[in-house]
C-alpha cells in the first residue's frame, strides 16, 4: 500500500509527459476532424463529438495537392534508391575488401555525415542557377541523395559487418563468383538492414524544408509538400481545419514508417536491458 502510494507522484509525472508529448499531435488530428463551427467555438471541446471529413476533402482538393504529393514522393524515393545503390557499393568495398586509402575514405564519410548543410543553402542556390538546375526536382533529388548518403554508408557497413564473411566464402567454394556469392548469399541477409536504412533516409528527405524552399522558386508546380504546407495561410487562409487535415496527411507516411521501425529502434535500445 505505502509502496504504491509512493509511486503516485512518479506516475503522475509520467502521465504529464505523455500528455505534453501527445497533445499537439492529438489536437492536430482532432481539429482536422472537427466541423468549423466547433473549431471556432468560444469554448473548445477536447473530445471528438461531431466528426466530419470536410477538411480532408478541402485539403485533398486544394490546388496542386496531387502534384505536390507526387513531387515529394518522386524526390524522396529517387534520393533514397540512389543513395542505397551507391552506399551498397561503398559499404562492400569498405567492409569486405582491403585497399590503400580505405581509412581515409571512412574518415571522409564520417566527416561528410557532419556536413553543415544549412550553411550551404547560398552556394547551392548559385550553383543550381549556373547549371540551369533551378526549379528542377532532379536537383533536389541530388541534394537529398548527398545528405542521406554518408549515413547510409555507415549504417550499411554496420549491417554488412554482422554477416559472417564465411558464408560468402562457402558459396565461392561451391563455385559462385564473388559477385554471385554476394548477390545470392549476403544480399538476402542484408535486406532487413537495407530496408531500415532506407526508411530513415525516407524520413529525412520527406521532411526536408530548407533546400526545397531555396531551390524551387519560380516553378510552383515543382514544390514539395513541406514547402506547400509551410505556406498554408496562402492556401487555406484561416481555415485551420483544412490546414490541420493537410498536415495530418503529410505526417501519415512518416508515422507509418516509424511504426514499422519502432521494433528495430526500441529493440536496439533495450538490447542492453537483458544484461541488467
Amino acid at each position: 500500500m505505502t509502496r504504491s502510494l509512493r509511486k503516485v507522484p512518479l506516475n503522475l509525472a509520467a502521465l504529464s509527459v505523455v500528455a505534453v508529448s501527445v497533445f499537439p499531435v492529438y489536437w492536430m488530428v482532432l481539429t482536422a476532424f472537427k466541423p468549423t463551427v466547433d473549431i471556432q467555438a468560444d469554448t473548445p471541446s477536447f473530445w471528438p463529438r461531431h466528426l466530419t471529413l470536410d477538411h480532408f476533402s478541402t485539403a485533398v482538393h486544394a490546388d496542386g495537392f496531387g502534384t505536390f504529393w507526387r513531387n515529394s514522393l518522386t524526390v524522396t524515393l529517387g534520393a533514397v534508391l540512389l543513395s542505397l545503390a551507391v552506399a551498397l557499393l561503398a559499404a562492400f568495398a569498405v567492409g569486405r575488401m582491403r585497399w590503400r586509402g580505405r581509412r581515409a575514405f571512412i574518415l571522409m564519410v564520417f566527416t561528410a555525415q557532419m556536413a553543415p548543410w544549412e550553411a550551404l543553402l547560398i552556394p547551392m542556390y548559385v550553383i543550381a542557377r549556373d547549371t540551369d538546375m533551378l526549379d528542377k526536382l532532379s536537383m533536389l533529388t541530388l541534394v537529398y541523395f548527398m545528405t542521406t548518403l554518408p549515413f547510409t554508408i555507415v549504417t550499411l557497413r554496420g549491417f554488412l559487418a554482422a554477416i559472417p564473411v564465411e558464408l560468402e566464402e562457402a558459396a565461392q567454394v561451391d563455385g559462385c563468383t564473388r559477385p554471385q556469392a554476394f548477390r545470392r548469399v549476403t544480399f538476402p541477409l542484408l535486406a532487413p538492414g537495407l530496408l531500415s536504412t532506407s526508411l530513415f533516409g525516407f524520413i529525412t528527405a520527406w521532411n526536408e524544408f530548407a533546400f526545397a524552399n531555396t531551390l524551387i522558386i519560380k516553378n510552383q508546380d515543382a514544390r514539395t509538400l513541406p514547402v506547400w504546407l509551410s505556406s498554408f495561410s496562402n492556401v487555406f487562409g484561416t481555415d485551420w481545419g483544412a490546414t490541420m487535415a493537410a498536415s495530418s496527411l503529410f505526417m501519415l507516411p512518416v508515422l507509418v514508417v516509424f511504426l514499422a521501425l519502432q521494433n528495430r529502434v526500441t529493440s536496439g535500445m533495450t538490447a542492453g536491458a537483458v544484461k541488467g
Partner: protein
Amino acid sequence: MPAAPPAARRRPPQQASVDPPPALRRRRRPVLGAVWPYLLIAPTLVGTAFLLLYPLIRNTVMSFQHFRLGELIRGGATFVGFDNYSEVLNDPEFWTVVRRTLWWTALNVVLIMLIGTLVALMLARLGKRMRLAVMSALVLTWATPVIAATTIFQWLFQSRFGVVNWVLVELGFDSYRDYSWFADGNSTFFILVTLVVWQSVPFAALTLYGGLTTISAELYESARLDGAGGFQVFRHVTFPMLRQLFALITSLEVIWCFKCFAQIWVISEGGPNGATTTLPVYAFQIAQSLHKYDVGSAVSTLTVLILLVALVLNLRRMFQQEGAAL
C-alpha cells in the same frame, strides 16, 4: 539527426558504430583486382566532390568576391579580399545575432538535456505498462515532421481560437484574451524554444534511457548500502557511467540547435524585428532578400567556423570509437 535529422533530423543512435568488422581482422584475402574497391567507391567520391566539396569551396570563394545580383545574372565576379568579412565583422547587428544564436543554443540545449535526463530517469523507474505508454508518446513526438510541428504550434498559439490562449484565460490570465504571440519578439522566441525542446527531448530521453539500462543494478544497490541518496547516486554512479553518452548527446544537440533553420524560417522568418534571427537565418536573409550573396557566404563561412568547435569535438570522439574498426 538528422534531422534529425537532421536535413538529417533526429536519428536513432547507430548500432553500426560500435562493432568492428570481425571478418577483416581475421583474414587477409587476396583481392580480385586492385581496381575493384576504387570502382566501388567512385560513385560516392563523385557525389561528395560535386555536391558537398564543390558547394563548400564555392561558398568560401564567393565570400572573397563581390557577388551581388548583377554577378549572379551576368557572371564576372571580382575578388575583393576580406572586404565582405570586414563588412560583417564591423556590423554591430552581426554581433547581436551571434550573441542571440549562442543564447538560443545554450537555452535549448540546457532545457533538452535537463528534461531529457529527468524523463530517462523516470522511464527507468516506471512500471512496464506506463513505461511503454511514455515511450510510445515520445516516439510519436519524435516522428512528427518539423513542418507539421511548426504548423501545429502556430495553431496552438493562434490568437483568436488558439487553445493556449483559451487555457490561459480560463486560468485567470485575462490579458491573454486574443493575445497575438507572433507579434512580439520575446513570445515568438519563447514559442520557438518550446517547439525545438518539445521535438528534441524524445531523442535525448530515449537514448539516455537506453544507456541507463546498461548499468547493472548491483552498482545502485551498493551505492544505496553505502548510504547514498537519490541525487548522490546520480552524481557518483549514473553520471560517470554515462559520461560518454551525455557528451555525445550534448554535442549533437549543440550542433542541431545552432544550425536550426526550418522551424525559425517557417514561423517567423527571423522576425518580428529580428528577434528570432540566428546565424543561419541571418545568412539566408542577407543572400535571399538583399541579394548580397557575397556577404551571406561570409556569414555562412563564419557560422561553419564557429560550429567547427563542436564538430571537431564530435568527430574526434567518433574517430576514437571507430578506431578499432578502421
